[in-house]
């Protein structure tokens, strides 16, 4: 429980600092200063500057906006995609169910990171492409989760009773079955968001994610690798932000999972 709260507070801090960055730190993350490249930590630049003399702190904050947006929208997409198709498969059944299950099994049989890597490489890097690739790669878990929940719920007594009372199937799905598995899907969602944050950063690090000069945590870190020994704060600082964000999701997921387990 304390973990959930700690995670939530940590997330709030990271989120607020990136969203309020233009007010908190009104330094343009794209503004170069060729006379002060690779500057170390100072009052003016708390995390120093990069090789074009840009302020690393404002790049980290601006990068956070981009990375968080990508990770959260990809999480939403993957839940919607897997959840919706899983519910459809369970409700409709028959050939549709078989076909969808086969498809997601095949997807699951593929090493996840390689899948995302190949998809992004083929679509060409970019924020939208990354969201799409992550959304597809993450969906099998939610498909399975949604499908099995929906199936067991459909068989349960109150749904049978409702059908006997003349309710249509899809309506039953939405009315009765859905709210019950939203909780577990959200737990899973928090840990997916943590993973996506890391995967997005890895893709950008490999040069396949968000293209420069738009900063994202991944590409800010990727740039910093080239001058790691010269200006280590350009790597350490943004990485701490990324780790904190991912950690906050992870804490929320773990805490909530324990809570759910204890309840059942």
């Amino acid at each position: 429980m304390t973990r959930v709260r700690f995670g939530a507070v940590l997330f709030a801090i990271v989120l607020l600092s990136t969203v309020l960055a233009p007010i908190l730190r009104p330094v343009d993350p794209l503004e170069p200063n060729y006379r002060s490249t690779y500057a170390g930590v100072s009052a003016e630049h708390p995390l120093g500057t990069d090789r074009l003399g840009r302020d690393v702190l404002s790049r980290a904050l601006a990068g956070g906006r981009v990375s968080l947006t990508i990770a959260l929208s990809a999480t939403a997409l993957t839940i919607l995609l897997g959840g919706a198709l899983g519910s459809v498969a369970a409700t409709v059944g028959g050939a549709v169910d078989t076909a969808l299950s086969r498809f997601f099994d095949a997807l699951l049989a593929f090493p996840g990171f390689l899948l995302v890597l190949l998809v992004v490489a083929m679509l060409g890097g970019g924020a939208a492409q990354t969201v799409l690739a992550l959304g597809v790669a993450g969906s099998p878990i939610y498909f399975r989760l949604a499908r099995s929940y929906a199936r067991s719920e459909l068989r349960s007594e109150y749904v049978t009773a409702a059908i006997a009372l003349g309710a249509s199937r899809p309506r039953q799905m939405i009315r009765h079955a859905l709210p019950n598995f939203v909780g577990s899907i959200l737990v899973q969602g928090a840990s997916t968001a943590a993973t996506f944050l890391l995967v997005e950063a890895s893709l950008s690090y490999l040069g396949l994610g968000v293209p420069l000069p738009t900063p994202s945590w991944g590409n800010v870190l990727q740039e910093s690798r080239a001058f790691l020994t010269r200006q280590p704060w350009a790597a350490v600082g943004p990485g701490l932000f990324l780790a904190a964000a991912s950690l906050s999701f992870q804490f929320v997921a773990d805490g909530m999972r324990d809570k759910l387990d204890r309840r059942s």
Partner: protein
Amino acid sequence: MELAKRSLSRRSLAFALAAAIVGTLLGTASAQTITMAMAAQPDTLDPQVTSATAAFQVSKSIYDTLVEVDRNGDIVPALAQSYEVAEDSLSYTFHLTEATFHDGTALDAQDVVATLQRMLDPETASPKLSEFAAITGVEATDDRTVVVSLSQPAPALIASLASGWGAILPSEKIESGHDFGNQPVGTGPFAFVEWQRDNSVTLNAFADYYQGAPQVDQVVIRFVPDSAVQLQGLTTGEFDVIDTVASADQATIESNADLALVRDPSGLALVAAINTRREALADPRVRQAFNHAVDSQTVLDVAYGGGTPIGTFMEAGSPWMPDSIEPFAYDPERAQELLNEAGASGLSLDMALPQPYENHIQAGQMIQDYLSDVGVSAEIRIVEWGVWLSDVYGGAHDYDLTVIGHTGKLDPTGRLDGYATEADNYPGFDDPEMAAWLESGSQETDPDARRQVYTNVLQRMHDGAPFIYIGTPDRVHARKASLEGFWITPMLDSFDFRTAHFE
């Protein structure tokens, strides 16, 4: 202080230990090895099927050419101890020296014939084929003499034969379809031992080298893309020479007495190409304005670690660069005036930058910033190298601005041909008068007349400004102070270990 001292002594202890282990392992203390770190990696070591500078930088030690470039940039005899050009300039006669291939066979005229025929064979699919297109026949008149006949005068041919792609291969191996790409065999100062891709190439000194055996026993070339890691390796002694030094590290190296920083002009002409096909960019005044808007010296210093600005499409150190052509001055006001004159306002451009070329991407971001100072906005789009080649440089020329370096050419035809005909060049520059000059220049055999032709061409390239001319970056490399005799071939930028040794 105390702490620093202690960690230092612990490190030196670890070093001594490591050195002892390595020493025992190698068993020999006398064998001298030069370890070099280079950023790029060859795609193949077959000199006839690649156009990558990195391939020729490595293959320079393995193969020899008929003629070669010396330290002053002059073309001097190599495997051909002399050559004559016929009166009508339609044939060249080469007289070969005595040399031995690494497989033990002796060099003879047949090797040269087979090498050139392999180059001309469409099966080989050499990207440099057009440079040899004028050749109509290659004949061995005796064991040591080769006659190359041409369909038209080709003064640039000697430059091609002096370049890495003019390397001479053994005829027996050519006939048997040997895999030169992975198992290169030449007459060079070092014989190929092993290539571990993405890791290292190992070369052993060739005792029978025709110019005398090299002074070290072994050369190991490591592929290290990261300049910080290269420097780290140089300071810890892992590397003896490194080919990439970031501008921020130059002072560190200069202040270290054990290291030496070497600064030579490279053979690159760095430019930001302007797509003149675009209506907004068709006016030369707009393009000249761009040239005035960019502080090219700062771009060179920050993105490329220093260099010399240029005012036309020729590298700074080239003998073909006319003294009369000055770089565009950094003058944002003049740029604004020119833009106003041309009636260009509110320009919004697409700037395509090639990955993984960090320097060009950096330069592009700087140019974007400079252009915004004169009210021109540019949106950066990073494209993969393959996409850049097929869609920006070739294909539909899908870009407004792009940044790239053109590699050094010993002869101006290699650099300039095609730049007067819209369909043949990526900025889409079109100038019929210049096209006629280029046509005559490629066949003109009188040196002074030829020089005048290319001066005219380069002046036109300056005035028409299909590029924002950035400059020629310095090729900065660093080495241990004790390593002497290592040098980088002017214009071709290849590595020469023949006289390298430790003092």
